[in-house]
């Protein structure tokens, strides 16, 4: 018990210090490599090649700066973040106010058409008969339906900030504006100027305006929502760092909207990006190149920016150097495949061993608590715990095994101790089995399952050769770059399918025996 308490304490100490330290450590590394601080493992997303795996069990020392200082890079980063968020919000509010103004204009126009004659020339106006008053009811209900429809379609919380303007929405806004302006023009010239007495005609004019607005709303639904529902393209999304690939079917969308749809799928389908898993292949690649050095024995030094024939000589020299390196590398007896094979087998074995210990530890831990029944509630008011306390009570017995397993599978930066305890309390509350509790640690889940700093939702960049408001085409390729990785997206058109029909009469299913007798005579 004491050793586990110690482990618990150490874990807690490191945990609280880690958040503040992350900022400082990166600047030390960036500024100078001369400080002798031991390479501390960063819990963030930037991992360094020499990572100390014992982050949970050793305390660390920070040299030079105090715990609350910021460096120049951090200030720049913070102001940039502020600018980004303020910039986007400015644009969002601008479009929102424009939309509200347009909406008010659209709603008040029919009412204005109906009310203005009463205000301006009430004596000349013919009285409104039954048919005309019936039209009032129709205008009222149509306006109500239009109000609800516009609220449902347009006033939803924005889910993304796209780089360029949404072309269809802009077109529809312009269309509505032109439409309303042309109605006002007609009204102004033919009715206000001439002070028309036929009030029923004016009411019918207002009704026709509302009808036309409903039809424009129908057009908006078709253009904005329905058109992209029918799948037209099959896109293949590959993550550049580890090759995870998924395929999705999308309809006819512009490139930026397709990118948005793909990012939303990314957050729920792709396992979380773990840069710690890529260090092995990088070290292998480094080893391939490290063994050879090229020496120039003939004495010609290729100057870097040489012009004319000198440049050609330098380029030729560089070519021959690289060719020599490739030839030498091919001839060298490379046993790295052997090392890879045995390393992977060893790693597999280690992971399975730790997993077995973890499963046993967790199952044992779960047997220490049980849900209290109703009758027992009156009997023992002493040792009753709520889920969080129960989780804290059984956590130490499995902490070590879990931490070792996470370290072996290089997932330790994805799960903080707080999150593990929260998850444990959640599982206990919902009567989940130990296997259900472990599932989120044994397999890497989608990105949203982890804490917010893994999401990187504000750092996506769309890189495309074609204009991002142009539509998706067969063979269009674009990149979605996040901080350390990018998603490469290629699209293919779903082929035109020609289906033909063949009719089978239900009575045509007949069978015969395959006879083959042999008779002796």
């Amino acid at each position: 018990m004491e050793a586990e308490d110690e482990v618990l304490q150490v874990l807690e100490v490191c945990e609280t210090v880690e958040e503040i330290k992350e900022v400082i450590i990166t600047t030390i590394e960036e500024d100078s490599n001369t400080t002798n601080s031991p390479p501390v493992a960063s819990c963030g997303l930037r991992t360094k090649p020499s990572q100390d795996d014992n982050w949970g069990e050793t305390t660390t020392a920070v040299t030079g700066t105090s715990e609350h200082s910021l460096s120049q890079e951090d200030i720049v980063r913070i102001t940039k973040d502020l600018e980004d968020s303020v910039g986007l919000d400015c644009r969002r509010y601008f479009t929102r106010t424009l939309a509200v103004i347009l909406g008010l204009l659209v709603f008040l126009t029919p009412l204005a058409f109906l009310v203005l004659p009463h205000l301006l020339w009430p004596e000349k106006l013919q009285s409104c008969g039954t048919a005309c008053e019936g039209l009032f009811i129709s205008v009222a209900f149509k306006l109500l339906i239009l109000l609800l429809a516009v609220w449902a379609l347009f006033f939803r919380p924005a889910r993304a900030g796209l780089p360029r303007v949404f072309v269809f929405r802009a077109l529809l806004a312009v269309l509505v504006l032109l439409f309303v302006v042309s109605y006002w023009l007609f009204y102004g010239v033919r009715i206000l100027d001439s002070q028309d007495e036929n009030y029923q005609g004016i009411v019918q004019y207002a009704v026709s305006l509302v009808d036309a607005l409903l039809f424009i709303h129908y057009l908006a639904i078709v253009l904005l929502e329905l058109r992209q529902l029918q799948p037209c393209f099959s896109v293949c999304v590959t993550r550049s760092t580890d090759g995870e690939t998924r395929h999705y079917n999308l309809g006819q969308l512009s490139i930026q909207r397709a990118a948005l749809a793909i990012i939303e799928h990314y957050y729920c389908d792709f396992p979380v990006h773990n840069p710690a898993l890529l260090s092995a292949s990088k070290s292998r690649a480094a080893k391939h190149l490290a063994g050879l050095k090229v020496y120039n024995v003939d004495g010609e030094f290729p100057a870097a920016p040489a012009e004319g024939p000198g440049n050609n000589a330098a380029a030729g020299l560089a070519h021959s150097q690289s060719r020599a390196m490739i030839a030498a590398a091919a001839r060298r007896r490379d046993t790295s495949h052997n090392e890879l094979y045995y390393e992977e087998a060893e790693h597999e074995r280690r992971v399975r061993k730790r997993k077995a210990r973890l499963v046993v530890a967790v199952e044992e831990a779960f047997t220490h608590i049980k849900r209290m029944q109703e009758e027992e509630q009156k009997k023992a008011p002493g040792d009753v715990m709520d889920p969080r306390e129960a989780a804290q009570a059984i956590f130490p017995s499995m902490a070590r095994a879990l931490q070792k397993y996470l370290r072996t599978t290089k997932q330790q930066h994805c799960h903080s101790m707080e999150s593990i305890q929260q998850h444990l309390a959640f599982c206990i509350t919902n009567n989940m089995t130990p296997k259900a509790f472990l599932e989120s640690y044994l397999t890497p889940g989608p990105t949203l399952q982890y804490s917010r700093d893994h999401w990187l939702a504000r750092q996506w960049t769309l890189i495309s050769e074609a204009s991002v408001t142009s539509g998706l085409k067969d063979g269009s390729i674009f990149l979605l770059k996040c901080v350390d990785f990018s998603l490469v997206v290629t699209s293919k058109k779903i082929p035109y399918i020609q289906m033909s029909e063949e009719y089978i009469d239900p009575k045509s299913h007949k069978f015969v025996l395959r006879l083959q007798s042999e008779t002796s005579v």
Partner: protein
Amino acid sequence: MSFVPGQPVTAVVQRIEIQKLRQGNNLILGFSIGGGIDQDPGQNPFSEDKTDKGIYVTRITPGGPADVAGLMMGDKIMQVNGWDMTMVTHDKARKRLTKKNEDVVRLLVTRKSLEEAVKQSMGGFPRP
């Protein structure tokens, strides 16, 4: 040995006469037949054309009357005592061969080697 439906069948045949042997109450010929228009022609191992539904000799008892008379395995039986055997059911073929009142059966059989032999002999004489 293949046939075109509706056209007369031409084949080089050998005449074989088998004396039936009395064994107890039965008269036996000493071979087995397979095939027939009610059978599956695809499973016939001896036919060249797998749609041929004729009667074929599938087994010969060594030393039996058929063996003595010169019948060979794989022969296709075209006629038995003047009765056609190219379009009969299996049972009809059996009955024609095992008539109790007949002591001898005269078969017309055909096989591939007969055709080959005739072709070779004819090829030697150039036509005038």
